[in-house]
Each structure stands twice: as C-alpha cells, then as structure tokens.
C-alpha cells in the first residue's frame, strides 16, 4: 500500500507545470524528459547540449533540495526485480524514442497544447501500462 497524497501530488504537479512553462518562456523548448535525455546523449555535439545537460543535472540534484526542505530524502520503494527493471528500462528507451515522447513530453506538454498526437500517445501508454500492471499482479501474480 502507498498513502493517498492528493495535496502533495497536486503541488508537485504544479511545480512540474511551472518548470515546463519556464522552459518554454526562456528557452522555447518542450520539457520532454525523454527528448532532453536523448538529445543530450546524441553523438553529434550541438548547441543544445549545454542546456540539456544543465536541466538533467538540476533534476539529479533535486533530492538534495527535498532533503534541505523536509529534513529527509524522498521515500523510494522499487517493487520490481532487477530483471524486470532491465527489461522495463530497455522498453522505455525504445518506446519513447520511436514514439517521440514520454509522460512529460506527450502527457504534460503535448496534451496541454491539445496535440492530437500527444493525446493519442498518452492514452496508448497509460493503457498498456495499466494492462501490464494488471497482468503482472493479477494474472501472473507477481
């Protein structure tokens, strides 16, 4: 079980939205984490490398801000086995690259622009994620 946290989750969502808007206002860019990571890892050096790297570094440093603000690190529980993490991670990398986006890029940025592609993508990955959890927990009994 995990606690129902509507207020904290809503507050976190507001912060994610603020960051996405700020990145658009200042840099003119979509806050799609898959796209930022993919662009950062691109073989060819490009002018976008620096801001992408800085954005990712800020994300990685964020647990320490949470520590400063709340006195403890955020609670992270990883229920999946290492094998499932590797398979899952590999599918995430393939899927977000071929599908041009993830929860942030399609789900937040694209949907808020009422992009039909992003709405379609979001409905698709939410559905397959739900089916996957149902199968692993209730059919296979993981």
């Amino acid at each position: 079980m995990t606690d129902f946290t509507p207020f904290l989750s809503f507050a976190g969502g507001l912060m994610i939205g603020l960051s996405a808007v700020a990145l658009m206002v200042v840099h003119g860019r979509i806050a799609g984490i898959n796209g930022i990571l993919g662009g950062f890892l691109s073989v060819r050096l490009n002018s976008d490398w620096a801001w992408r790297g800085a954005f990712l570094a800020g994300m990685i440093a964020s647990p320490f801000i949470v520590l400063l603000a709340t006195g403890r690190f955020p609670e992270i529980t990883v229920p999946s086995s290492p094998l499932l993490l590797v398979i899952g991670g590999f599918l995430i990398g393939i899927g977000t690259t071929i599908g041009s986006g993830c929860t942030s890029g399609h789900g937040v940025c694209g949907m808020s622009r009422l992009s039909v592609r992003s709405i379609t993508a979001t409905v698709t990955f939410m559905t397959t994620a739900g089916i996957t959890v149902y199968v692993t927990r209730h059919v296979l009994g993981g």
Partner: protein
Amino acid sequence: MIRVVSAFLFGLLFGCGILISGMGNPAKVLNFFDIAGTWDPSLAFVMGGALIVTAIGYRLAFQMDKPLQASVFSLPTRAELDTRLIGGSAVFGIGWGLSGFCPGGLIPVLGLGLSGPLLTAAAVVAGMITARWLSGVRTGGKHAAA
C-alpha cells in the same frame, strides 16, 4: 551562461515536483495503475496540476514574439497518427508498467544513488541507442531519431 543556469534551476524545480508528487516512487506509480488491487489515485492529481499550469502558461508564453533566450519556440510540427507514434507509445507503457519508472520519474531518483534506478537508467539508454540504430538501419543511416 544565463541559459545554462536557468536550465539547471528549471531542472531542479521539475525534479522537486516529481519527488514531492510521488512520480519518482515506483511503488506509488504501480499502485496508480493497479485499479483492481492496491489502487492509489494520487498521480491523477500530478497530471491535473501539471496540465492546469502548462495549459494556461503555454497560452501566455505563445503571446510573446519569441522566447527570452532563444530565437524561436521549438514545437513539434508533425500531425499524423502513425504506427511509430502508437507502437512506440505502447512499448513505452509496457516498460513503465514493468519498472514503475517513466523517464521524468527516473532521472531525479538517480541523485539518491540507489542500484535499482541506476540499473533502469542504463537499460533506458541502451534502449534509446538501439532504437536509433534500428531507425538508422531502416532509413539507410541518413535519418537520426528526434
């Protein structure tokens, strides 16, 4: 310099939002999808909060002639619903459901140095490289994945 510092701060804000909301906690993410079991609807509130701010903020942002530190707004222009979009998204969802991580949830957690998230991130990068390689093979090496 302003571009790099501002991007770092926006990443920090994004990461804090992820961690406070619970999107970085796979146990919470998997419970969100487990409607038939230990359902935790919290993450619907993350999406709600993020969408409200972004929908309004983007509208205001696009009133500007151009971004403060860039020459244009870089927005996706494709409109077609193709098999790559739907197939890729379907595959991503399976990975999300198996691991409990999405890319935005995973990166902030890497700062904690836990083995599970690091392992997942390595696999995500391997998947990205594989997808690009597959795209390159299909199009004769001329095409780079966006």
